[in-house]
């Protein structure tokens, strides 16, 4: 894949605060990359650095194979959409869309052509002569997207474009952005702290924490094989169940023992080989926990007391007291149990992930072991 945006050794400081210290990121041409992370982790800062809107301390920014580290925002071939829309309040929609083209000195007919095209794509034709104050939130954000669209740029930057909108509009516009990406094939870098947006839109997700990219891979990989407990806990709702325990090795068998006498035979997990005596966290997502008894001899079987039942329409979350904490079980349909019931449940070994208790890092098969198996 050709590289569209490359960031090398980026460092950014605000006064004495080092927000980003050494960050690398490679985004392929036409790729949809989502920057995901908790508030204050530096997502907007990174995006602003790509756009050239803030000064960086160290590093390089490359866009479309040009080193743009010292270039003006307008010369970087980017368009940007902000959470607060940032439309020019005194200009009509048409003027908002054409302002950048006018500044660039584009001929009138070309400007009109591009504005017309963008307006058609975003269903703004009927609104062209309105002022931003006369538009709804969703319409305003479409104008803001249009403003980036008319510039015919290679890279689109979105900074939480949907977070000012209500849930319904957010869904609509999310689909629209996805469609836009499929139509245009531009590179898009999209900041959000909404995991649904991240999972649905992204080709790849970069999960950030405290100015560091913790994991950069496909939504599937991030969801099913999170690199550490932070990512595992950040994505998915309710979050992944984490059960603390200790591994004990006896001959060729490995046992995971938690509190309250919880014990699983985890010999079938190759990544745990040689980890006897280690304190670990067993992670299992709520939707992979199944209510009822299992006949599968390999399944991890458990028992617990239901403390809360949360019906959510399409499915139900059941909170069970198990191994020293509340564990979530997501079942489809209406609840079949109620608070106070003692229930059996089980989960398959292949859905389980183990993390180191100290570092929170996922325990993976080492290269040597991978060779063995």
């Amino acid at each position, binding site marked *: 894949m050709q590289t569209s945006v490359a960031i090398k050794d980026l460092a950014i400081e605000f006064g004495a605060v080092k927000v980003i210290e050494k960050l690398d990121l490679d985004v392929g041409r036409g790729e949809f990359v989502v920057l995901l992370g908790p508030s204050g982790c530096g997502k907007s800062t990174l995006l602003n650095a790509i756009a050239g809107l803030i000064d960086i301390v160290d590093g390089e920014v490359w866009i479309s194979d040009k080193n743009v580290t010292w270039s003006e925002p307008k010369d970087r071939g980017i368009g*940007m959409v902000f959470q*607060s829309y940032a*439309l020019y309040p005194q200009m009509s929609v048409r003027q908002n869309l054409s302002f950048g083209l006018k500044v660039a000195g584009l001929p009138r007919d070309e400007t009109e052509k591009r504005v017309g095209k963008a307006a058609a794509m975003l269903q703004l034709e009927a609104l062209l002569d309105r002022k931003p104050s006369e538009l709804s939130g969703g319409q305003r954000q479409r104008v803001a997207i249009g403003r980036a669209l008319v510039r015919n740029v290679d890279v689109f930057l979105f900074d939480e474009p949907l977070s000012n909108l209500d849930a319904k509009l957010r869904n609509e516009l999310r689909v629209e952005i996805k469609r836009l990406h499929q139509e245009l094939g531009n590179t898009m870098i999209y900041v959000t702290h909404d995991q649904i947006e991240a999972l649905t839109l992204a080709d790849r997700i970069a999960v950030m924490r405290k100015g560091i990219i913790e994991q950069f891979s496909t939504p599937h990989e991030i969801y099913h094989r999170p690199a550490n407990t932070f990512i595992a806990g950040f994505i998915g709702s309710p979050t992944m169940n984490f059960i603390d325990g200790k591994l004990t090795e006896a001959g060729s068998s490995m046992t995971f023992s938690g509190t309250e006498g919880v014990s699983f035979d985890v010999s079938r997990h190759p990544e745990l080989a040689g980890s006897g005596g280690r304190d670990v966290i067993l992670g299992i997502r709520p939707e992979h926990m199944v209510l009822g008894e299992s006949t599968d001899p390999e399944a991890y079987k458990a028992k617990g007391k239901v403390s809360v039942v949360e019906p959510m329409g399409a499915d139900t979350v059941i909170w069970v007291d198990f191994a020293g904490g509340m564990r979530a079980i997501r079942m489809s349909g209406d609840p079949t149990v109620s608070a106070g019931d003692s229930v059996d449940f089980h989960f398959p070994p292949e859905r389980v992930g183990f993390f180191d208790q100290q570092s929170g890092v996922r325990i993976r098969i080492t290269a040597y072991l991978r060779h063995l198996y």
Partner: protein
Amino acid sequence: MNVSVSAPNSATIAASAVQLARGRKPHRLTAGRIGLYAFLITAAIFFLLPAYVMLMTSLKPMDEIRDGAIFAFPRTLTFEAWWAAWSSACTGLNCNGISVGFWNSIKILVPSVFFSIAAGALNGYAMSFWRVKGANLLFAALLFGAFIPYQVFMYPLVIMSATLGVYNSIAGIVIVHTIFGMPLMTLLFRNYYAGLPIELFKAARIDGAGFWRIFFWVMLPTSTPIIIVAVILQVTGIWNDFMLGLIFAGRENQPMTVQLNNIVNSVTGERVYNLNMAATILTAAVPLLCYFLSGRWFVRGIAAGAIKG
């Protein structure tokens, strides 16, 4: 329907009053409200009384004024004093009325208001959006300057303007007004721009607009409320100025306030109270009009600009 009524005790009455609550809450005139209104009305009368006396006096002939009934309505209504004040009142040897001062004041006012606001808006814009190095220090210095009594600056300023060759000229007084207006105007615009989303500026930068284009195309058009406030502050402030006009404008260009003082204080024979009052009202008319026409904007702008930040 059959409703049995038993003698209610006081507790049930109170409870049922609450239960009956429905719809718009009734406004009740409390003692505190009455006191507040009484105070406001008294204060209004107190301040309006002199204005009333001035107006009445200006509309009376001198014979009637000599009677001394200052609160009485004029028996013979005459606008002669007003006409005389405007076109033929004397200051020293010149008897062209206060209209001369009026036009001088206009000539001083218009460019002074324009340039001081332009400078303040530009300063505020640059400080809010362009992270100019040392901007905060500069701003602090500017504000500090605003708190020094401006009489202190007079002598150095006179020397400076004389050196520049603008002493005793309209240009000179305009420059002085612009300088003295700068701290407040900068503060006003800086606070206003600090309240605008920074993304507006960023979006314009991505659209390729530079310093001036962002200022004229994006920031100024959104600044109408604060410009109106600035105009009110500057029009009233500059119009009411006496000392700067006296010192810097020169004999030919003395503003209305200075001329009014000369008219009122030139005692040759009897004091023409009606003319003096008329001249004074005429001089005060411009700021008064300014306040009356803009009351709502003024409050809104002050609330938006000055309190924040």
